[in-house]
């Protein structure tokens, strides 16, 4: 009896230690976002408040501008990625494509290479053609980096659609294009939405590419977080970080609802 009890106590302590390691850094961020004054040697903030939240959420504040820019860029990135990925995903899932596995790998490459060396050269070309420091330039960079999610997941979503349903529509006289828009696309929609969420988050959180291509005019939330943190303004940095954290954690909790097992098992094939 006592052995069982000590066993449980040891396990509980281990779980608590792990919780401290995983949640501790996030908790420290939350403390900072509500700390009006906090300095050595105090273990907790000297005075608490939401003054910095008011500064951040002031409609004319720099943070709201950054949030607007970030969301605009993320939405445009999703649009661009889906426009090119839906046809590509369909072709990869359903049509005979020469060198198919090589094409799949090409979309993975931007994620599988050290990015900084690529971005510095992209920034240089963008400067030459006049789209450095523009939203357009940042959107193109984000989309090229996020294509692996949109192409791979939409392709898996199309592959998971039952071919018999398409054939039934065709047998009743529907044209291939009509069949695609009324049968295939609606059935693949949950997977496509999941890929859109991946692309949206990837763009919202992207720092390195924006840092090189977007300077000095495009100021997204990650760039604001970076400059606030390096400038020693931990409250603004922490609140910005919290704004970025919320969609990430919501997605982590609900990802399985968007990505069903039948689609997930076909990703990357």
């Amino acid at each position, binding site marked *: 009896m006592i052995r069982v009890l000590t066993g449980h106590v040891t396990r509980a302590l281990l779980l608590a230690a792990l919780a401290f390691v995983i949640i501790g850094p996030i908790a420290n961020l939350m403390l900072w976002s509500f700390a009006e004054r906090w300095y050595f040697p105090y273990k907790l903030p000297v005075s608490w408040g939401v003054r910095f939240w008011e500064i951040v959420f002031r409609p004319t504040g720099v943070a709201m501008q950054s949030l607007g820019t970030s969301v605009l860029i993320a939405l445009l990135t999703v649009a661009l990625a889906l426009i090119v990925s839906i046809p590509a995903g369909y072709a990869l899932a359903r049509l005979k494509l020469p060198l198919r596995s090589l094409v799949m790998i090409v979309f993975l490459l931007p994620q599988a290479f050290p990015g900084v*060396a690529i971005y510095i*050269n992209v920034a240089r070309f963008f400067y030459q053609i006049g789209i450095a420091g523009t939203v357009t330039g940042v959107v193109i960079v984000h989309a090229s980096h996020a294509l692996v999610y949109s192409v791979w997941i939409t392709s898996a979503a199309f592959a998971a659609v039952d071919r018999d349903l398409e054939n039934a529509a065709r047998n009743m006289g529907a044209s291939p294009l009509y069949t695609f828009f009324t049968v295939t696309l609606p059935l693949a929609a949950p997977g496509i939405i999941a890929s859109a969420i991946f692309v949206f988050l990837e763009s919202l959180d992207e720092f390195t590419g924006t840092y090189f291509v977007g300077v000095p005019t495009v100021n997204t939330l990650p760039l604001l977080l970076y400059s606030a943190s390096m400038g020693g303004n931990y409250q603004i940095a922490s609140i910005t970080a919290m704004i970025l954290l919320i969609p990430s954690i919501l997605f982590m909790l609900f990802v399985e609802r968007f990505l069903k097992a039948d689609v997930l098992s076909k990703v990357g094939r």
Partner: protein
Amino acid sequence: MTESRGLAILLVAPALALVIALFLYPLLFSVASAFSDPATGELSLINFQKAYELYSIDIAYTLFIVVAATALTALAAIAIAGYLTMGETPWLLTGLAWLYRWPLFIPFIVAAQCMRTFLAKNGLMNNSFVAMGVLDPAQTVSFLDWRGVLITFVWKQTPFVALLLAGAMASLDRATIEAARNLGASRLRALIEVVLPQVGPTLMVGSILSFVTMLSVLSVPVMVAGSQPTMLTVDMAFRINAYGDYNVANALGVISYLMTAVTAWIYLRRSVREQRDGS
């Protein structure tokens, strides 16, 4: 048949063009720039010589951080996924499954800001140890150096590798594990000798993706450990921002491609061997 092939190529072309223009072309350009003499434009190794003279310590430092962080991430992921597969205490399984995924989608820059406060001399980690009486306030040290970078990388990447591993372990045939347990093997031994060899390829893919990701991150080394030595990503940004020196920056880039290439080679050699053994 040729008609459908043509259609397929047409449908893939826009997406492919985006990757070629924004990734393959800059990649080739960076290699060409790294191997050309900035004064004459001729083929030369002078940029690599300069990169080595200025940054040899940072090259070794980067390699150490990324290799050590990948190894620690793999160990932590094996421990978590292993317990999720072999564990027998229901409440601990529920708690662990709920807990371990939190950092999964947290951006690196947010992780860096979290650690910048958590690991500081007066951060929540040291303060908690002092409050528990484990540490004396005078003994506290800041972890905001190479240790901080290592901790941040492991914290951020472990859930990803653990998620892949736990998935692979869950789809294994339970009969082999039960057989080992019935023959008297402990759970740890069954994990190491029966489960791990079967999920080797998944662990390899997860580790390689983590390795390359960590090699590409700029925010963590800047924000968590500001001083010298630092990682190659920071040196590249500095070469561009301070000197506009694309040649040496691209030489450093090629060195980081080489580090990636070594891991890709290990992976390919292994999968070729597996295919040969399998057939």
